[in-house]
């Protein structure tokens, strides 16, 4: 089998389990991982495409995509002296060798690789990726960042972020997705699995800023042990199509999540986020605030589900969604769901608003000398302000505000 590390695999329609196996062995991957890739590929090959009513992948032509057999763009930003405190922040391929048992114990356990065709494809083909481990009671002030970059000319990337926080660990982690506009349709299929140890605290931001023509089909999951807390910020600005299944599993007693989302869909973009929030622990708490702006012919979907499951007690949850339509051709759908399978719920609230920019707000600001265009810009960036405000890094906040303003 002729497989060179830095050369792409054959196109998906010609790719076989044998190609994957040869590449994995050439990369020195352990047997269990080789087997997992093969199982996942088997699943991908035989599974029917998922029936997603609001995500259209027609333009993608995945069968002609030639995936990379090696990482193409994983940029890690951190202070390497932090390694002295026991923190591991490395490429996932390196971590498979250096911290095999830790990776093996967690990889693929929050998101079932065999859930559907695309989760299987991700598990079979990931090369880019990071492993972040923060030991017990280690607390970091400076955010750690990874930037996944689709290489020019590449038509696929399958990044994998695996994050494990020890007991009482505290960290901020930012993952960013970026590329130039892709000349041919490209597939970005990232996986993010995060495990929050007892009493740990996480600030997590996922920032999707792909260039045009990128189809993002992602899976994200956070699993909470007792008293773990997380602030999760989901930003969707780029790409052609986005379909993110994002799950938070509040299984530890007293765990809590605050989740902020900002989606800005314009031109022909179709950006979907499907959060699933599972309350299974005792006295868990969640607050979701998803904000959407649609412009030109943009289309966004919030397909959210909160489950308050049988084992839970005293759950508090509140969901807010707000959307602004800047153009008559823009659309947004919201499908909030709540399933309760217990008699013991402390509080479950929901609020939503949707509409154009308020003319009274515009008049008020104009009456102070601010032009209509500037007033609109201020109102729109102000609308995202509570989301951006939750980001752990000022420079990221500013660049996102600027990116939104530039596209108004």
């Amino acid at each position: 089998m002729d497989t060179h590390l830095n050369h792409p695999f054959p196109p998906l329609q010609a790719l076989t389990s044998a190609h994957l196996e040869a590449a994995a062995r050439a990369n020195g991957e352990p047997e269990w991982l080789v087997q997992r890739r093969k199982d996942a590929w088997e699943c991908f090959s035989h599974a029917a495409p998922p029936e997603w009513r609001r995500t259209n992948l027609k333009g993608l032509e995945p069968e002609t995509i030639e995936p990379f057999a090696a990482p193409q763009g994983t940029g890690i930003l951190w202070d390497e002296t932090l390694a002295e405190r026991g923190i591991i922040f490395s490429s996932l391929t390196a971590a498979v060798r250096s911290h095999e048992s830790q990776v093996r114990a967690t990889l693929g356990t929050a998101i079932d690789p065999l859930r559907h065709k695309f989760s299987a494809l991700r598990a079979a083909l990931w090369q880019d990726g990071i492993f972040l481990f923060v030991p017990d009671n280690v607390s970091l002030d400076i955010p750690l960042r990874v930037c996944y970059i689709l290489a020019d000319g590449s038509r696929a990337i399958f990044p994998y972020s695996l994050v494990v926080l020890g007991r009482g660990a505290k960290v901020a982690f930012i993952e960013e997705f970026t590329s130039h506009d892709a000349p041919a349709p490209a597939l970005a299929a990232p996986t993010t699995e995060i495990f929050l140890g007892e009493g740990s605290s996480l600030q997590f931001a996922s920032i999707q800023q792909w260039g045009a023509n990128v189809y993002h089909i992602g899976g994200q999951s956070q699993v909470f042990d007792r008293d773990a807390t997380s602030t999760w910020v989901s930003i969707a600005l780029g790409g052609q199509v986005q379909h993110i299944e994002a799950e938070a599993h509040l299984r530890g007693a007293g765990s809590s999540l605050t989740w902020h989302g900002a989606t800005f869909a314009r031109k022909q973009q179709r950006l979907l986020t499907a959060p699933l929030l599972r309350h299974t622990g005792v006295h868990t708490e969640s607050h979701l605030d998803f904000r959407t702006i649609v412009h030109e012919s943009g289309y966004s979907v919030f397909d959210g589900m909160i489950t308050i499951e049988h084992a839970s007690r005293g759950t508090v949850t509140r969901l807010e969604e707000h959307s602004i339509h800047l153009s008559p051709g823009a659309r947004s759908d919201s499908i909030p769901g709540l399933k309760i399978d217990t008699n013991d719920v402390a509080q479950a609230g929901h609020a939503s608003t949707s509409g154009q920019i308020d003319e009274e707000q515009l008049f008020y600001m104009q009456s102070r000398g601010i032009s209509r265009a500037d007033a609109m810009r201020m109102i729109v960036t102000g609308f995202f302000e509570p989301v951006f405000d939750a980001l752990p890094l000022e420079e990221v906040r500013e660049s996102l505000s600027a990116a939104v303003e530039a596209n108004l």
Partner: protein
Amino acid sequence: MTGELVVKDVYVTVGTEQILNGVNLVVRPGTVHAIMGPNGSGKSTLANTIAGHPGYTVTSGEIWYQGQNILELEPDERSKLGIFLAFQYPVAVPGVTVANFLRAALNAHRAVEGTDPKETAVPIPEFRTMLREGMQRLEMDQAFARRYLNDGFSGGEKKRLEILQMSMLKPGLAVLDETDSGLDIDALRIVANGVNSLMALTAQSAPNARMSALVITHYQRLLNYIKPDVVSIMMDGRVVREGGPELALELEEKGYDWIRGEVVAHGE
């Protein structure tokens, strides 16, 4: 005179309803001109029409200020010409802080066509000082500056913020639309001081462009604190009586029915 506001036979409709039926009014520079009238007489419609609210359609008439028929101007252009409306119901804009909003407004006023707005923008230290001093004068908590514009503000806080904006933008003509409604006596005093001191300031610093105020109120109460030079009474979308400060007192004593009776008796 260019600093005059001249309202000439103005007719205004809102939706399909005609609200103003030929309003005539002149506000002279350096004067306080009170407009009183019962609810629904068109006072607030006049205020919003002067400021250029898009929901108010002027079907006939003219409004002149600084040598221009301002009906052709956008609300922001009117503001830059020197017109300021203190809203009866200030609008909340979540996500936009008081400080950022005020700075944007000031910079819009300072901008000069053909010049980079960065060059005319107020330097941030200077702005901070202006804001701090303005808030002190109005006895406002400094934490106000970081709050979102009118978002969750009490009625009194909103009205103080209107006066703070006025004091920073230093308009040639301030239109106060029922600024006294919902204020207790202390807040009323503070707000009135804000208006009076700004008028006194322009009387000294700009004797040729003295600020004038069009004070719209339902009650005489505010006029104890801001002394009017002229009082106009509106009814059914028109000015039906005009006089000196004594007219407000007479109105307070006899009530609006007295005016209504007079207007009918004179066949107006």
